[in-house]
């Protein structure tokens, strides 16, 4: 059954919300009263319910199956956290109601910040960034502010080739120039290469660790040392923090700033692409520059600082990332997750995530090709398309064939440093039985590919709500909104 668009089934006079009739007071809108109503058809409640329920049923989700999307950490989303976030004391408070009426909200932010600092071994945290990329921006701004405070103008940022695209994009946003750091043959960053690139113009290095090949950078401490020695800062992309919580603290490795994707590591739901939250932990060198708003303690009590006027000596915020206080709804969920796990549960989660990735690796290493076999994988395992050579099947085909087997594909073609990358992150939420079935399915697919059953791949997916979609057509003449079908005109008829 194909589900139409709301614009095709709704009617202008219909509404699914009963509101009392206005009293007809004379409006005070001056000349700006709307001249024509917007063309937004309405649906009654039963129609809307069915429409969106049906739409949902064409989605894949964690709750319906394994979602091994590398670098995205698609772990279980506990419903307790949803329930906590909906407590009226959290969901129904206004960001600008008197501070005296929201002490519990400040507690949540302060507590969560405290957990993040302890888990990372860092000194301070900027809570307001709205997502990972926003956190990166925040961290890099703090670095820029620190450099300015030193009276310097460094504007080069070192970024390894394997980095997430957000890293160079972020650096560019604040006027920095990106200098690529080449990867070594084993998938790690070469400390010597970094040293060679360092200089008085270098502001920072942006490093993901574990890196996007799923490898913990063995020389990270040495890199940090070199970076610091050159007067630059060490920005860590925290997207892969789920591999190491409770095992090693970024602060101990010399990190100056790292964003944390609460929607990855701490399980706030991805929601089909957000909302997320990207708090940034900061070293003592960057802490003074944390943006507004923040919470500091006065006599042990959390006090909210919203403007420069509220700052204490030594606090020199570089500005503000967003209105209000950040993603409170994600904070409550993440805090509930942390309180549930505790320090022991969080470490166990990371260990299980790493264990699961290596277990999948062990189950597939003989059939698929590991570009970097010399290092253990962390929470995700990277394969390349070497094993598909001469089959005529691409990474994309292989991924689409997984859909027909009931799985969401892994991350494809990322990182860019290997050919036809396939990045698998099972997370700690999968049972051994689930991993075994996944491995068996992938083995079957690989053997099928090698046997030359090409159509199973090139024609996939066949059992999904849609066959392959024409992305080129979508991009060539973008149709980004519904348009009323044009009425049939006499002129057209004449043609």
């Amino acid at each position: 059954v194909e589900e139409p668009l709301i614009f095709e089934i709704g009617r202008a006079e219909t509404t699914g919300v009963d509101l009392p009739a206005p009293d007809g007071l004379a409006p005070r809108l001056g000349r700006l009263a709307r001249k024509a109503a917007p063309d937004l058809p309405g649906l009654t409640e039963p129609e809307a319910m069915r429409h969106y329920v049906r739409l949902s049923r064409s989605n894949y989700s964690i709750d319906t199956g394994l979602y091994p999307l590398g670098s995205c950490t698609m772990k279980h989303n506990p419903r307790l956290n949803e329930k906590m976030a909906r407590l009226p004391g959290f969901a129904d408070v206004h960001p600008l109601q008197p501070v005296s009426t929201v002490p519990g909200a400040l507690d949540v932010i302060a507590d969560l910040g405290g957990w993040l600092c302890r888990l990372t071994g860092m000194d301070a945290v900027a809570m307001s960034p709205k997502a990972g990329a926003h956190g990166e921006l925040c961290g890099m701004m703090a670095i820029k502010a620190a450099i300015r405070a030193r009276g310097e103008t460094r504007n080069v940022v070192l970024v390894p080739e394997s980095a997430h695209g957000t890293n160079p994009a972020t650096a560019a946003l604040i006027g920095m120039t990106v200098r690529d750091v080449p990867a070594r043959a084993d998938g790690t960053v070469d400390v010597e290469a970094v040293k060679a690139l360092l200089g008085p113009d270098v502001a920072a290095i942006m490093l993901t660790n574990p890196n996007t090949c799923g490898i913990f950078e063995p020389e990270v401490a040495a890199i940090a040392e070199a970076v610091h020695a050159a007067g630059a800062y060490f920005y860590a992309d925290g997207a892969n923090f789920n591999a190491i919580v409770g095992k090693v603290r970024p602060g101990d490795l010399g990190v100056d700033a790292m964003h944390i994707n609460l929607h990855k590591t701490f399980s706030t739901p991805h929601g089909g692409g957000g909302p997320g939250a990207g708090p940034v932990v900061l070293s003592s060198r960057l802490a003074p520059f944390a943006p507004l708003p923040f919470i500091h303690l006065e006599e042990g009590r959390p006090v909210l600082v919203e403007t420069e006027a509220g700052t204490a000596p030594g606090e020199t915020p570089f500005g503000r990332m967003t209105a209000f206080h950040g993603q409170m709804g994600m904070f409550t969920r993440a805090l509930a997750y942390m309180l549930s796990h505790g320090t022991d549960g969080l470490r166990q989660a990371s260990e299980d995530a790493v264990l699961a990735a290596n277990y999948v690796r062990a189950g597939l290493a003989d059939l698929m090709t590991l570009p970097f076999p010399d290092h253990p994988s962390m929470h995700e395992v990277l394969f390349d398309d070497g094993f598909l050579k001469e089959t005529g099947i691409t990474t994309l085909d292989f991924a689409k064939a997984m859909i027909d087997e009931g799985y969401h594909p892994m991350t494809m073609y990322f990182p860019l440093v290997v050919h036809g990358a396939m990045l698998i992150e099972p997370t700690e939420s999968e049972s051994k039985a689930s991993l075994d079935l996944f491995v068996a399915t992938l083995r079957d697919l690989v053997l099928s590919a090698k046997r030359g059953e090409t159509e199973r791949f090139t024609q996939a997916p066949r059992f999904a709500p849609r066959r392959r979609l024409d992305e080129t057509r979508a991009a060539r003449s973008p149709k980004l909104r519904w348009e009323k079908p044009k009425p049939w005109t006499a002129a057209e008829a004449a043609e």
Partner: protein
Amino acid sequence: MRYHPLTATDRAEMLARIGVPGIDALFADVPADKLLTDLIDLPRMRGELEVERLMGRMAAKNVPASSVPFFVGAGAYKHHVPATVDHLIQRSEFLTSYTPYQPEITQGTLQYLFEFQTQVAELTGMEVANASMYDGSTATGEAVLMAHRLTRRNKAVVSGGLHPQYRAVVETLSDMAEDRVQALPPDPLGTEDILAAIDRDTSCVVVQSPSFYGHLIDLAPIAEKAHACGALLIAVFTEVVSLGLIEPPGRQGADIVVGEGQSIGNALGFGGPYVGLMATRQKFLRQMPGRLCGETVDAENRRGFVLTLSTREQHIRRDKATSNICTNSGLCCLAFTIHMTLLGSAGLERLARLNHEAAIRLADALGRVPGVEVLNDGFFNEFTVRVPGNAAAVIERLAERGILGGLAVSRLEPGRGLDDLIVVAATEVNTDEDRAAYAQALAAVI
């Protein structure tokens, strides 16, 4: 632990299969002196009951908007959201899905994004909209950057009616990007002459209507002047419900429209997550940041939807991207689009009218309190009052009486000589009793 399916037996078997003696063998790349041997000093795992108690205790310390006469706005608004909305966004298939990178199995997400884009474009009177930004303030910041790219200039002129925190976001972003911002002084009376500030260096003019202080701004002359100077008009709103009654910025000549969508479908939530709306003209499309969902067909020629024009985005373009945005506000879009679908034009207009009438009644009630002056002639559902003495203290005394009476402007604009102003919002949730209680309490505390 209830979230961890692996048992001790499983772990042992898996380690054996991998061929390592213990879990720490997999952490061999971590420098030995950095690998933690002890647990980090934080509390241990807890059951649901204990977590609920801890969180419940924190929540109980806050005063929910629904529990009192409530008149705080200034960028976030207390509206009633139908129960259906929250039910639907909690569907597993929406809640626990990722960004729809595999369109064949995420048509649910993609189709609602397409519906969302259409609704936002229609509401704002623009040609195209994206699939959301983080919130209104960051959308405004991105709009300024977009205008810089389009005009190849780098000076933004910012109205004194823009929400002070939105202004701060623009200033921060511009400061860090080495761009320029000319911010006009706060404009509580709605009388600033922004036309005078626009010149040939200007890339964009950023104007909020209804303004932070509640004034309705006629954008047409500003657009005219901006366009004459080769600049773009960025129109901002914080209360999307206003578009049910007010002429949309797109029909007043705006080039980029950004705003906060929280009012529709989304809870107050102490400020987030919200949903930033962004719409523009077709011709500026390729400089628009954020995700876009487009219509196409599948291999069997059935209609379907995909993320498109991703050549603008960071994961393809890296340092040449239009923005670094990746995760956006997917689920908040869904809440928005469901609520908007339930409203339809008819419901939206009625909702807007109820809000406007609530504000009219409130303005009249507060205006009758001796010593209190309403600064606005026109407004939508928000306006500014001048009180004798310190507004922040008045708000605090009102709160002690169980009334959340608005925002003292000085909280966001300290040291600007605006210490006697309160921004007050009214919505459909306010009752006659609420308004009477406010007026009475205000008379008592000033």
